[in-house]
């Protein structure tokens, strides 16, 4: 009884493969965008905007990036945070060297640099796969973290290694309060999400999925493995780099290597696994889950014990819950929250009639 697509006939392949083939889906998407752009800013307070929604959006962008690589192209990466760091530091450095550059251009530059580094560290993927590749990306993680910590040129010879991000102005408006930051991040994330969704249903996206499902077979039907895999690394790292720049500029307000350690890489991998491999909505669901769960646990903990439970204990329980959820999802629903949502939709479509 949810909605029906009866009567919506597709008369061409183009229509069948549209980004949102069903009319009601289009309405839902527009409604959601309106909700994000109008309703949320009207009702959310600064706490929600600054410490939940903006970090959530920035991390979903990183998860989206990793999802391109791991979910669509099937190449596992444990170096996401390193690519984010490249994005953040490259944007910062461009702005330091050429102060009159607008920050959006700097962000793009950050993304492009991250894409370059990503392609470089993606080269081993031509010979190895699976966790061997994971190790290669771990090398990227450690090397890049070290590079930014030990070479003062990247931090512009700042003594503490922590640098304040330059202020951002767009068309004369200063982006300094939570609401404007929210709009900035939201716009970038929405554009990127549509970009990925579109890419995934194009020839490139189908090539990625063929490589993911079986690379030997994909090669046999004429897919250029090198091009496909490196493109996946490039696009993924571009998005991660953009997310890194957003994370440093908008969320933290500082550019520091410590914000991009290996724990961050794992966090984003978890978002992708919990949210759903190979789905755009999964990146958002996973990021939302990973951001909200600690807050929920904290509140539950103090509610049950009346505030006597230590933050340390909560942190440990958080570890356990994350671990358990990862295992749970892999066993029960390897395709994550996004798949659960889809199953729910299918069920609702037929309800209350079983056929």
């Amino acid at each position, binding site marked *: 009884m949810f909605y029906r697509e009866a009567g919506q006939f597709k008369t061409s392949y183009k229509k069948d493969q549209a980004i949102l083939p069903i009319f009601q889906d289009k309405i839902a998407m527009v409604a959601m965008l309106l909700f994000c752009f109008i309703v949320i800013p009207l009702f959310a307070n600064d706490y929600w905007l600054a410490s939940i929604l903006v970090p959530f959006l920035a991390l979903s962008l990183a998860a989206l990036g990793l999802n391109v690589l791991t979910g669509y192209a099937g190449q*596992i990466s444990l170096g996401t945070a390193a690519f984010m760091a490249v994005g953040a530091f490259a944007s910062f450095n461009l702005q330091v060297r050429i102060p009159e550059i607008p920050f959006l251009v700097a962000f793009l530059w950050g993304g492009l640099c991250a894409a370059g580094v990503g392609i470089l560290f993606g080269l*081993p993927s031509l*010979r*190895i796969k*699976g*966790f*061997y590749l*994971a*190790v*290669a990306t*771990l*090398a990227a993680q*450690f*090397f890049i*973290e*070290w590079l930014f*910590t*030990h*070479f003062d040129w990247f931090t512009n010879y700042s003594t503490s290694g922590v640098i304040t991000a330059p202020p951002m102005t767009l068309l004369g408006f200063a982006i300094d309060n939570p609401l404007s930051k929210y709009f900035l991040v939201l716009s970038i994330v929405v554009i990127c999400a549509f970009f990925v969704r579109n890419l995934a249903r194009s020839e490139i996206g189908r090539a990625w999925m063929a490589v993911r499902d*079986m690379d*030997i*077979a994909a090669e046999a039907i004429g897919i250029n493995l090198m091009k496909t895999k490196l493109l996946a690394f490039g696009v993924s790292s571009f998005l991660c780099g953009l997310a890194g720049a957003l994370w440093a500029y908008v969320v933290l307000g500082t550019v520091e290597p410590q914000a991009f350690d*290996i724990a961050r890489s*794992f966090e984003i*991998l978890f978002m992708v*696994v919990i949210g759903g491999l190979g789905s755009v909505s999964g990146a958002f669901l996973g990021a939302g889950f990973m951001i909200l769960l600690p807050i929920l646990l904290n509140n539950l903990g103090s509610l049950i014990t009346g505030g006597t439970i230590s933050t*340390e*204990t909560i942190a*440990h*329980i*958080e*570890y*356990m*819950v*994350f*671990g*358990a*959820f*990862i*295992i749970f999802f*892999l*066993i029960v629903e*390897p395709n994550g929250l996004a798949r659960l949502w889809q199953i729910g939709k299918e069920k609702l479509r037929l309800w209350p009639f079983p056929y």
Partner: protein
Amino acid sequence: MDWWFFLEVFVGGLLSGVMYSLVALGFVLIFKASGVFNFAQGAMVLFAALTFVRLLEMGIPMLAAIGVTMVIMVILAIAIERIVLRPLVNQDLIILFMATIGLNYFIEGMAQLVWDSKVHVLDLGIDEYDAFEIGEAFINKFDVYAALIAGGLVLVLSLFFRYTVIGRALRAVADDHQAALSVGIPLRTIWIYVWSTAGIVALVAGIVWGSKLGVQFAISSVALKAIPVLIIGGFTSVPGAILGGLIVGCGEKLAEVYLGGFVGGAIENWFPYMLALLVLMIRPEGIFGEKIIERV
């Protein structure tokens, strides 16, 4: 060039490499028998070491504490097999790998929740700073003992794999799951054996590392050092784990001392990974690994 100093760094590297091998050994055991790359090995080391040190602090004699910890590790192995591995049979290896990352977080959280997250001193009665003197080089005594323990463990494991019934069954399972099943080797029991053995190896590694660094959360990150060891030595080979450990230990110490100065130091963290990357490019299966054959 000061050759005595070189010797000191070289031997120090070899000995610390043996300690990496101890951790890597746990990975190899599980990989050999089930094809699972167990990312949680580091957490198991932490868990074993914490359990052991807390039992000691409760006043339980050392041998009894070792015994009790071993029993706990076996129980953990059974739980892992029952709860995590059994439902994931026949899944992609990469799914299993990610499941062990989840397991890693779970055990890390559990270890610190059940025990605590303070730094514990583990004193085995060996002075950490005592050193042998060879010519003008100083060799740390503690490292030598650790190396002897590791060597002994490898010898015992190799003999175990070669001459006991269980060991032979393990090798059979490693070769071919289905063939092993068809001649009547119980796969589930074998997995429990392997994970228990890996748990006990984790205990030994935990005791050695714990008395060197103090038993604390940082121990679990030793596992990250063991990964390049595996890549270099080969995932499937016990001697490979040892040789890989030696190469990584030596390489990183020598690189730190002789190259680190030029580029700002602290290259220990990534040098082994770059070495591993190099090996991956040339020989993906590692020095002693079995050749990777892809069937379509």
